[in-house]
């Protein structure tokens, strides 16, 4: 299980944001994307999700082009973007059940347990509309726990989270990496993890 990028290029509005970008991510590693706003971090993440075609180059998962793999590749990935991707009119449990059904379900953990792990114990039947911004963000991140995705692709996961929330999420990351998971993340906050496992790429250079 590895993720490899070969010679990627990203063009937006006629500007080349980055080119000749290559990297290799192994289980247990974190790919940390840094750079100014507008340097192409989100575009690169969306390319890793196989939503956006790269302007040049290719990305492979275990040697196969991710755009050719389609749903097979998506079974191995879980994504949390800028927006939470939760329906405000559904309860926390309903949202998470939906997320679980969309991917490769992880039957080792119940929905309620997943909610407890992101510190939403007791909020299972609350309509998401009534949760605070930080709680909604944690709910959005809980979807990472209910599937068996090996690669987590996260765009600014710590948005709206307080120190406690950040701590909870960092615990999730640590557990995931310890279980041979991979994380590709952009973040303005410093990511508090074992520094040897972090592969930093700064797109502003």
């Amino acid at each position, binding site marked *: 299980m590895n993720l490899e990028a070969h010679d990627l290029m990203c063009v937006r509005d006629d500007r080349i944001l980055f080119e000749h970008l290559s990297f290799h991510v192994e289980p247990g590693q974190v790919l940390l994307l840094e750079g100014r706003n507008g340097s192409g971090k989100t575009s690169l993440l969306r390319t890793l999700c196989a939503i956006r075609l790269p302007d040049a180059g290719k990305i492979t998962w275990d040697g196969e082009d991710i755009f050719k793999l389609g749903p097979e590749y*998506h079974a191995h*990935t879980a994504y949390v973007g800028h*927006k939470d*991707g*939760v329906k405000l009119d*559904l309860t926390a449990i309903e949202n998470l059940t939906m997320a679980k059904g969309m991917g490769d379900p992880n039957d080792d953990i119940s929905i309620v347990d997943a909610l407890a792990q992101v510190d939403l114990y007791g909020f299972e039947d609350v309509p998401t509309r009534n949760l605070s911004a930080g709680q909604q963000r944690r709910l959005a991140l809980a979807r990472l726990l209910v599937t068996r995705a090996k690669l987590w692709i996260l765009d600014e996961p710590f948005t709206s989270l307080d120190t406690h929330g950040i701590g909870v999420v960092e615990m999730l990351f640590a557990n995931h990496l310890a279980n041979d998971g991979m994380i590709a993340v952009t973040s303005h906050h410093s990511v508090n993890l074992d520094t040897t496992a972090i592969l930093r790429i700064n797109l502003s250079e």
Partner: protein
Amino acid sequence: MNTRSTSRAFTLLLRRDLTLAFRQRAEMINPLLFFVLVTALFPLGIGAEPALLRSIGPGIIWVAALLAAMLSLDSVFRSDFEDGSLEHFLLSAHPLSVLVLAKTLAHWLITGLPLLVVAPLLGLLLDLSADAVWTLIVTLALGTPVLSMVGAIGVALTVGLRRGGMILSLLVLPLYVPVLIFAANAVDTASAGLPITAHLSLLTALLALACSLSPVATAAALKISLS
């Protein structure tokens, strides 16, 4: 992913959309009201002579149904696009066309099916015969799903655009013409007491074509719109 879990995903998504619609029940009334209002406006515009209304009634009701369907199309993907859920459909381990079919079916149940329920009332307003009203319901049952499915392609192409709503009508109405022609004419023919098997076969064929091809086209369009 195996077919069992894909069909489970289909059911989950269908139930999700129906639940969401039910929790915003008031929204469901709008296309319905539009349907009735447009139909009711015609006699005001062209005169209320019973023979005239009876002869153009089927056409009016069907055009009103078309416009009501168009009006309600935007809601298929709008809310999911805005809160980020739409992206997750593209990232699902299940084929996007299956998920699209679930969403379109939900959309039809919420916006198309009610039109069938209200149609007899409109038949009353325009003094259509019992045969005509019955045929109207059948053609709506066959035609409105086609409107939802073909319309979904247009919505998928315009969901990311700033003023997508405006060009949606331009994209979708030409594609609606065959349904309008066959359905309105079926009701006309039934009013005259003639058999309509040909019309119904054609409408069913359109439905079959839409069911098989439009989810694929809609999925492709969504992937392009969100890239």
